[in-house]
Every structure is written in C-alpha cells, then in structure tokens.
C-alpha cells in the first residue's frame, strides 16, 4: 500500500483519450514511412483473419438468396429432419430448409449492420467533432446529449419502440439502432478532437487563414480515421447482436428472414426439447463468428492506434523468430542480432518491426535495448 506510486502522469488509467493520443502521431512522418505504416494494419494477422471472414459474409449477403438451394418459405414433407444431403442443415417444423433460411437471412443482417454502422458513425462524427471543435456552450449541450443517450438503457428502449411498430422491417430496426447507438463514438471523437484542436498544425492552419470547414475536413478528420473506423466496427457488432436479439424475441417482422428470425422460430416451436440442434446452433454460431471477425478487426485497429499493445500483438512464434524475448511483467527486451554484421553501415535490427520504427544500431557490440 505504502509504495504505490501516485505519480499523476504515470498512473493514468488508459481511457480512450490517451490511447487515441498516440494515434495522432501516426501518419505525420515522411512519405516512405507513411507507406510502410499503411500496411501495418493490414499485415496484422488478427485484422487479416477478421477481414477475410467479413468478406465471406459480405459475399454471402450479396449472392445468398441466389445460391440458396431451396426457397426458405417452401414447406415440404420432411418435418424437423436432421441434416442430410438435400437439406444441409436439416429442416424446421414446417419442413422448410434451415440452410436456405440462414443464407437468405445473411443479407438483412449485413444490411442492418451496415446501415446502423454508417448512420451511427455519421451522427457520432457530426456531433462529436462539432462538440470538440466549437467548444463552449454548444459543446456542453452536445456532450450532455451524448451522455444522456449513453446512460439511457438502450435495449429496453429499443424493445419498447420496436414492439410498437407492426412488423418492423430491417430498415426501421437499423434506424432505431443508429439513433440509439451513436453516443459512445461521439464521446470518443469529441475527446480526440479536443486534443487535436490545440495541436501546432491546426494552429498553423488557422494562422494561414484556412476556413473552419477546411480545417475540420482536411486537417482534423484524416487524423481521426482510425477512431472513426474503430467506432464504425463496434457499432456494426452492436447492431448485429441487437438485431438478432430483437428478431429472437419476435419484435421485428417474422416473415423477414434473418439469423434471429430462425432462432425465433426454433424457440417458438420447442426446438430445444425436441432435440433439433441443427435448428438453433448454426444461427448462433454465425452471429458469434461475425462478431468475432469484427472484434478481431477492431483489435487490429487498436494495436495500430496504441503502440503499447502492438508488441503484444505479435504471436509468440513471431517474437521468437525476430529475437524478442518477452520479459514477463514489464517491457519486452529487444536483443540485438548476433554479431554477424561487421560492416560499418547502420543496420536496422529486425526487432519491433510492426511498430514501424525499427531500432537502428550502429554498434556491433551485442547489447540490449530495453524498449
């Protein structure tokens, strides 16, 4: 207790602001560096995995209804049949093909995710950036608005609103979700804009007489890209989960196929007690896999934004290969490569490559750099 460091600067709990801070330093160095950095995000194994899975879902959303083997509403005589050659994921209580229902449903899930993501992100950028930029009373009002939306319990509210609309379609759901899901993004963006506003390059732009609009669009927004992307991805995750939940409890239109609708029918027809696992297991797995893909993409963005998480983003094997021995507990050590380089030219060590700021060493003494 006594030797707990209470250094204000050191004990900063990482809130969004300080994570975000380091993002800004990113794209400001020379062009060569910048190019390299652009690929840091894409090179990250987590984000690649996430992006690939997401791409598969997007393709399925586009072609799903065409490649579905059956019409999802076609009733057949194979009632509640387990998976077989003609029905890959079995059939439901009316003999409808579950696989086709899921394929067709992918589109509405992705549409809700996309529309909610775009809508909520636009709102967040609009409100967050203007609050941060205007300051004063407009800032107070907009922040209070965002905070109120953060505190109001969203799910019960959405359920109450959605249940009032008869057969709410995907679009209605997406709009309701966007209207309730923008607040967190706005708060993060406001914090970041506040910290950007005082930076030298913004001051310089202002001094050269650039218009406010230009400063916002061309000086501020590009520096917020990573945060906007991350807030977009989390909103999509939120939207997919909420839409599935709403469809599951039956407040959306039940004739509109989505993954949640499949779960709704399964629950409403005692799929559980009838042991029809093929009816409800795949739908939930799809949601989980899509959510996982989005989270992985967000991890990639996080590591891109927060250099401290970055080293940890390397896999154990990767670290061993590049000669990094993780020190348990504190900063990893970068051990310089063995003394094979006797030439006098500066050698860039392979350590910490993902940070894009390789440690340049000129000495051929084996020494340790603690990073």
């Amino acid at each position, binding site marked *: 207790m006594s030797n707990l460091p209470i250094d204000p600067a050191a004990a900063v709990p990482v809130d969004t602001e300080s994570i975000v801070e380091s993002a800004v330093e990113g794209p400001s160095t020379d062009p060569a560096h910048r190019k390299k950095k652009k690929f840091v995000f894409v090179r990250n194994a987590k984000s690649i995995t996430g992006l690939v899975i997401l791409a598969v879902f997007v393709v399925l959303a586009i072609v799903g209804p065409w490649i579905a083997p059956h019409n999802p509403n076609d009733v057949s005589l194979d009632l509640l049949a387990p998976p077989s050659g003609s029905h890959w994921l079995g059939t439901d209580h009316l003999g409808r093909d579950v696989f086709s229902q899921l394929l067709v449903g992918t589109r509405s899930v992705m549409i809700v995710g996309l529309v909610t993501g775009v809508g909520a992100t636009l709102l967040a950028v609009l409100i967050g950036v203007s609050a941060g930029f205007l300051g004063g009373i407009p800032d107070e009002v907009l922040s209070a608005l965002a*905070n109120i939306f953060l505190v109001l*319990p969203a799910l019960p509210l959405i359920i109450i609103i959605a249940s009032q609309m008869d057969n709410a379609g995907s679009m209605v759901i997406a709009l309701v979700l966007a209207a309730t899901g923008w607040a967190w993004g706005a708060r993060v963006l406001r914090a970041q804009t506040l910290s950007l506003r005082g930076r030298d390059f913004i001051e310089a732009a202002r001094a050269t007489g650039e218009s406010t609009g230009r400063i916002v669009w061309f000086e501020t927004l590009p520096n917020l890209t990573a945060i906007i992307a991350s807030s977009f991805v989390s909103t999509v995750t939120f939207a997919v989960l909420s839409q599935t939940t709403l469809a599951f409890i039956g407040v959306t239109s039940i004739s509109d196929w989505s993954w949640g609708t499949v779960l709704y029918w399964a629950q409403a027809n005692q799929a*559980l007690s009838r042991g029809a696992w093929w009816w409800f297991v795949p739908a939930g797995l799809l949601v989980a896999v899509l959510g996982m893909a989005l989270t992985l993409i967000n991890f990639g963005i996080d590591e891109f934004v927060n250099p401290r998480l970055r080293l940890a983003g390397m896999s154990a094997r990767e670290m061993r290969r590049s000669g990094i021995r993780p020190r*348990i507990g504190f900063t990893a050590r970068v051990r310089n490569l063995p003394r094979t380089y006797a030439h006098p030219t500066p050698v860039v060590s392979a350590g910490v490559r993902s940070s894009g700021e390789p440690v340049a060493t000129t000495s051929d003494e084996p020494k340790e750099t603690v990073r």
Partner: protein
Amino acid sequence: MKFLLRRLGFYVLTAWAAVTLNFFIPRVMKGDPVQSLINRFQGQIDQDAVHSLYVLFGLDKKQSLWQQYVDYWKEILHGNLGISFAFFPTPVSQVIKDSLPWTVALVGMATIIAVVLGTLIGTYLGWRRGTWADSILPVMTFFSSVPYFWLGLLFIALLAVTFPVFPASNAYTPGMTPSFSFAFLQSVVQHGFLPALTIVLSSVAGWILGMRNMMVTVGSEDYVTVAQAKGLPERRVMYGYAARNAVLPQVSSFALSLGFVVSGSLVMELVFSYPGIGAQLFAAIGAKDYPLMQGIFLVITVAVLLANILADVVYVFLDPRTRQEG
C-alpha cells in the same frame, strides 16, 4: 466537490429526460390499452366504468398534454406508478417489487463472479503477454461476441434436455412456497445455476480483455520497471504495482455494470422463463400494459443512474487526480 456537483446536475438532467421520454412513449403509440382491457373482460364493464378507466390510466383525451405531463410528474414524485393493465388491479409498484429481487439476486451474483474471475484471469494474461497466454484471446473474442441468449439455449439443450442435470425454466420448483428453508434455497440455487452460468460465460470475456489490455499498458510504465529493478518479488510487482493501477478502470466499469444488472439480462429471463423484471417487461409489451412498461423502464433508468453516481464517487475516492481537478 465542484466535479461532483456538475455530475449531479447532469444526472438530474438525465433523469428528467428519461421521465419525459417515458411519458411520451405510450402517448405516441398505436393501440388503445383500455379497449384491449375491455376486450379481455368481455362486456363485464359498463360505459361509466370505461370512462373512469380512461381517467384512471391518464388517457383522458379531454385533458391537455401539458396537464397530463404535470400530473404524471406529480404521480411519480409520490411514488405512484399507476395500475397495471395486465395484472389488473395490482399496482405497478407491487408487480415490480415482486419481480425485482429475482433479477437483482441472480444477475448481481453472476456479475460479481464474472468481474472477480475476469479481473484475476486478465491480470495473469496481461502479465504473461507475448507467450502462449495470448493465444487464449481469440477464444475470448468468440465468447464476447456470442449472443448470450443463444448460449442459454445451448445450455438448456445440453444440460436440461439431453442430460437433465438442471431444470430448464422457472426460479424454483413450481408449487413450493418461497421461504428461507433449506429445501427452497436449494431449489433456487439449482434453478439459477444455468442462467448464472450463461451470464458469467458471456460477460467474463469482456472483463478479461479489459484487464489484460490495462495490464499490458501499465506493465510498460516506469514505476513497474523500477519496482522490478529494485528486485521486488515477481508477485509483489504484479499485484502491488501493475494490477493495482490497472484495476482502476475495471472498478469503475464494475460500478457501471451494476446499473445493467437490472436491464442487462432481459432476454435471458425470457429464455429461462425466470420471473424477473425482464420477463415482466415482455409480458407488459405483449399485453400493451403501458403503466407497467413505463414503470419498468423508469426502474431500469434509475438503476443505471444510481450506478453512474456510484461509479463517479468510487472514482473520486480511488483516483486522487479527479480530486485535484475539482
């Protein structure tokens, strides 16, 4: 102090917004609750009684909206939430009082377990980052993005239907009278196990990830390096220096999550037919029971607001810097 006062002002504002929203929702909604009540009682209510029902439920169209709004506030400040339509003539407050303890006990317990477990695991994973421990993370993301009601369905299918170890629904064996006897408590624990397991499994991942990332960040602070350089035992550095500072955001998120104890598990109660506040809300929506809907929404909002206040107070208490600001 100024900080707390400012926050208090904000909470008053939010409470006002919530109540106002609450007031308007049923009034812009379609459907006539009194009509549906009359239909339920099939001609047992005569015309005079119908009119008094409209007045009683505050749906008298002759009053101005403003007058209704003022009346609504008066009622709420007196703690009067109206009479439930679905459980006519039970007052809403009674319905809520009956269902709230179930939700709070079950979800509260599950939340505490998830937080403690998640923080401990997260501390360990964060300390050992860059080793095999990192490979657990993708598994965690899977659990954090799974829809939790679906996990509940899986558990029912597996542990209640295929292997009937636990009961699939209700909070206690139907027919038992609630008491503090051993048999009853045993039944409650047995019935609560699956719902609690569902909540813990689906929420623990978030706590682990949060704590782990904080540990990684704090781990590269100078004071941790110094502590290690002083030759302090590993365990001491890990818990006394790194985890102590990393746990701050966890504590405040824990306080916040207490607010979601009431609302966070609405769907879980539907899946497990648990007689909590969520099941009540769905019943209210199905029966167009506006007073009950409003009452439940109000209770949930108040819970969230209280949790936020708690989080602020805790933070001021734990983190000296917020005190300096004020």
